[in-house]
């Protein structure tokens, strides 16, 4: 049970990073990105490709960062002349295009089979020690990302993002280059999501296009909305809450004696139901955004 809890906590930390990234875009930048999983995939495939071509761990980081910058930039570029809702659809489409390319360009990405046996983290350690080392690394990583996101949003940059989020015309009339702000936001948050993907690939030692399906994006959206959009702590709370609930659904199934199909169905129902319930009755989530939270003095 202890190993299982460590495993779930590691996954919750990694999902928290992706949720923090999405929250930076949607909660602070007003960017309704429905292709978030592609940014996570930049990290997983950065790690996978570096392993496949025997380029080493550091090269993997560079490749993942390079992919994240390119995809973040592409997302921002297609949104230049699109309204929020159309941009959301375009990001969903772009993420699907990326997944299909990954699925079909087997010579480079391993195709549908993916890339397996990616080198694990802390190979010199074994068993539980290795798990604990990965756990503490993920917790530290999450803490650094949290403070980095706060640093970004608590300053003038964050205030600029917030004005652009709600009133882009006002922001323009005040002299904000809204397109540049959004581009920077996409690239910075893309790097956070890709870093989670990079660690994930090394943790589970496997990379495949099925990890990039759009339902994963909506899982991350559910985490952000249930946790509290526009609040970094909310994103983390939402990620931990959903990840732990998801992980304990199989135990609940065994306890009540439900069929195996119940697990997948319950997870999907929780994502959809959670999204609808919170959007209808508690739009601000469990940890609402604090209006006036920026220390101006």
């Amino acid at each position: 049970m202890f190993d299982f809890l460590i495993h779930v906590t590691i996954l919750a930390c990694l999902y928290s990073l992706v949720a923090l990234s999405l929250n930076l875009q949607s909660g602070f930048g007003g960017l309704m990105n429905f292709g978030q999983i592609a940014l996570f995939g930049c990290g997983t495939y950065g790690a996978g490709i570096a392993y496949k071509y025997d380029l080493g761990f550091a090269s993997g980081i560079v490749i993942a960062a390079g992919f994240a910058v390119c995809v973040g930039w592409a997302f921002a570029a297609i949104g230049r002349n699109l309204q929020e809702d159309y941009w959301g659809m375009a990001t969903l489409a772009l993420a699907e295009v990326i997944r299909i390319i990954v699925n079909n360009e087997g010579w480079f990405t391993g195709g549908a089979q993916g890339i397996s046996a990616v080198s694990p983290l802390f190979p010199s350690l074994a068993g539980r020690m290795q798990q604990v080392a990965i756990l503490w690394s993920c917790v530290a990583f999450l803490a650094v990302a949290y403070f980095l996101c706060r640093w970004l949003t608590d300053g003038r940059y964050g205030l600029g993002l917030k004005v652009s989020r709600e009133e882009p015309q006002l922001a323009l009339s005040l002299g904000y280059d809204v397109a540049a702000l959004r581009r920077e936001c996409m690239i910075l948050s893309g790097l956070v999501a890709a870093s989670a993907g990079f660690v994930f690939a090394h943790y589970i030692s496997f990379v495949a296009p099925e990890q990039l399906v759009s339902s994963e994006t909506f899982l991350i959206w559910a985490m952000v909305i249930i946790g509290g959009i526009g609040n970094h702590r909310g994103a983390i709370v939402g990620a931990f809450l959903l990840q732990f609930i998801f992980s304990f659904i199989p135990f609940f199934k065994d306890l009540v004696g439900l069929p195996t199909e119940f697990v997948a169905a319950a997870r999907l129902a929780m994502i959809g139901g959670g999204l609808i319930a919170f959007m209808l009755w508690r739009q601000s989530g469990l940890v609402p955004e604090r209006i006036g939270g920026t220390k101006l003095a």
Partner: protein
Amino acid sequence: MPENLLHIADVSKLFGENQVLRGIDIKVTAGEVVGLLGPNGCGKSTLLNVISGFSRASAGSVIFAGEDITSTAVDRIARKGLVRTFQLPSMPRRMTVAEVLQAGKAEGLGFRSLFARSRFDARDVERLLGELALDHVRDLSAGSLSGGQKKLLSIALALRTNPRLICLDEPTAGVHPSLRQHMVQLLRKVNAQGVTLLIIEHDMHFIRELCDRCVVLDRGKVIADCSPAELTLNSGVVEAYLGGARDKRAYA
């Protein structure tokens, strides 16, 4: 010879086949307060959109401080010192008045500003909150303010950008009379500090109290350019506002 801060040179604007502006030519001297008047639908707001970059002129050019800004992006025009307010200002709901005012200064923003947390300009924000009588609402959501308070906040935001010219789109529409008088005093003070003002307005008392000169538009053309006192003596202006022989001809 006083310097022309803004020159709207022979500007025309078409929406499809509908010509909204027809060869508008207006010069605004630095330090002036110019009223832009005209009946509803005469093209005032369209002209303001063209000046501020929100809309492109179909012909002609806009020269600001000696530089052609006809095709310049809105944000770049604002950074050059030409800012505008909106007829129905919309403010962020998830930011306080103080936060919005602090965000009003976009100058120097970009990756560099990530390292500029200490550059919050609290003193300037406090001064503006006091001057615009908004200090009692400083911690309220900016989107929850009354229409008049939002107009005051939009003027304060324009002032945060260190403007050379502010274009105000109906600043007194829907504003309580007490706030209106406060606005007159504030704009006089702003003008005394060297900021040029171009004001779209229907309130003639406001225009008389504030403006040095009035430009009147009708059906996309300049029909008068005179002092506020001369407005009622101008038959073209009276006809445009109250109707006259021309309308009778139109309905004959």
